[in-house]
């Protein structure tokens, strides 16, 4: 009898403690979920993710990215409390298992968040790039937004794998080669534009001629309509010319002086 009562007392004490712990965990998780939702809404996440495929998928399931993220953090905390409760109960879990789980848990969580952020950012990059290319009615141009999207996702996957301690050296090398090839190609392809921009910077800063002046560059003569970083637009009686700024630099410019 006495032994039985003691066991019951001990057990009930433990049960009270554990249930208290679980309830506390659930409450804290709820509070954190609400708080994170509010913070995410305040920093404008819903607006930022609008139109991305993740948000659309979430919308079809009747939730949203923000709700999803706050749910994930809620389940993380609940999971953590359950883990602590199990340790207290001492059920068959060896210390080692607990340690490993406690080690892995946060990194899994961060990598999940990074992965979600990567997908959202990739979508966003696709939307932004395709919007800026909207005016171009060329079917092939559709590949550029896709490239931007998958580049972002690739980088986020790399970070995630790094978080999870997976060997990513080969993938990093691949990324390096990819980035290097972009730099190499663009430095060849856009060399004229770079030159023009450098010259344009000088022209914009020193303003040797302004809009309305009559100038001559090489054999092009006319009234300046616009000076941009890349080109100077000149209009004569019946012609409109675009002079790349590096040409202005190379050939020099003559400005008509009004002596009235």
């Amino acid at each position, binding site marked *: 009898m006495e032994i039985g009562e003691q066991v019951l007392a001990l057990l009930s004490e433990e049960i009270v403690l554990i249930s208290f712990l679980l309830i506390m965990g659930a409450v804290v998780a709820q509070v954190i979920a609400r708080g994170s939702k509010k913070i995410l809404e305040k920093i404008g996440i819903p607006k930022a993710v609008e*139109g991305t495929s993740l948000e659309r998928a979430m919308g079809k399931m009747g939730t949203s990215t923000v709700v999803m993220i706050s749910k994930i953090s809620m389940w993380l905390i609940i999971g953590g409390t359950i883990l602590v409760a199990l340790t207290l109960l001492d059920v068959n879990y060896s210390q080692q298992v607990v340690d490993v789980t406690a080690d892995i848990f946060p990194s899994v969580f961060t990598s999940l968040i990074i992965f979600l952020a990567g997908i959202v950012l990739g979508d966003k990059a696709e939307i932004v790039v395709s919007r800026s290319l909207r005016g171009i009615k060329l079917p092939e141009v559709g590949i550029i937004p896709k490239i931007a999207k998958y580049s972002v996702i690739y980088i986020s996957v790399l970070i995630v794998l790094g978080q999870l301690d997976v060997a990513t050296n080969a993938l990093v090398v691949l990324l390096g080669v990819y980035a290097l090839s972009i730099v190499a190609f663009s430095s060849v392809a856009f060399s004229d534009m770079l030159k023009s921009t450098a010259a344009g910077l000088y022209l914009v800063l020193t303003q040797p001629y302004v*809009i309305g002046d009559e100038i001559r560059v090489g054999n092009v003569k006319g*009234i300046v*309509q616009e000076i941009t970083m890349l080109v100077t*637009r000149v*209009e004569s009686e019946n012609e409109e010319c675009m002079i790349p700024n590096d040409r202005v630099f190379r050939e020099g410019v003559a400005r008509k002086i009004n002596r009235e």
Partner: protein
Amino acid sequence: MRGILEMVEGFISKDQVLVLLYPSVAEYEKYVESIDRRVVVVGRENVWGAESFVELPLEFEDVKEKIRFSLEGAIRNGMISDGDEVVCISKLFSNELDSFMRIRVEESQLNSGIYALFLSSKSDAGVIRDVLELVIELGKKGQNGEPVGALFTVGDAGKVMNKSCPLSYNPFEKSHVHVGDSIVNVMLKEFSRLDGAFVISDEGKIVAAYRYLEASSEGINIPKGLGTRHMAGAAITKGTSAVSIVLSESDGLIRCFKSGELVLEVDPEAY
């Protein structure tokens, strides 16, 4: 309660065109999915990837004006034609599509010229929109509560500069400001109390202020009763490809001129 969508579904007949005014992406998809009609979308820019899209750079607050300009744009783009019946769905009180109406398109009533102003001008539509928005705000608030007048020319800045002379020192010399920057709006409002015109280039650079426009007013026909500011604004657009946007000090209306003719008249309060 039945949603607007269901009501429209029961209301719209086979050959009518659905016109969505500034829907959100989700709303657009919902309507396209459930209503199998020709859909015309009106908005600032085509975020929906819609096939029939009308760019209406200014979002009018007055729903009547909004619909008028939207239908005008749709006609110009060949999406609807004279005599068609359309069902317009618009925001009215809330921030989502909450009202709809059926309208018979009559082309004769839809030629305000806002499309001629935006689409067939050489300068960037965004620049004209920015200037128009600025003038609208100026017309609404005035300068310290007093009504002000203003004159802006947009585009063909080289020619405009050669057809005008400075009234005073040009505050925008050696500067690189563009319309649409928020700080510039404040600056322009301050400068607008001074006489003369603002000259803005095709790409939105503010070239000069205090310009006296010297264009000849020969052959310019503007409505009687408008003053010298309107005359100068109209005349400068005759020999150049510029448009001019004039805020009247006396009646508070905004008038836009192109090729020497009045193309648009808007009341800033309607916006």
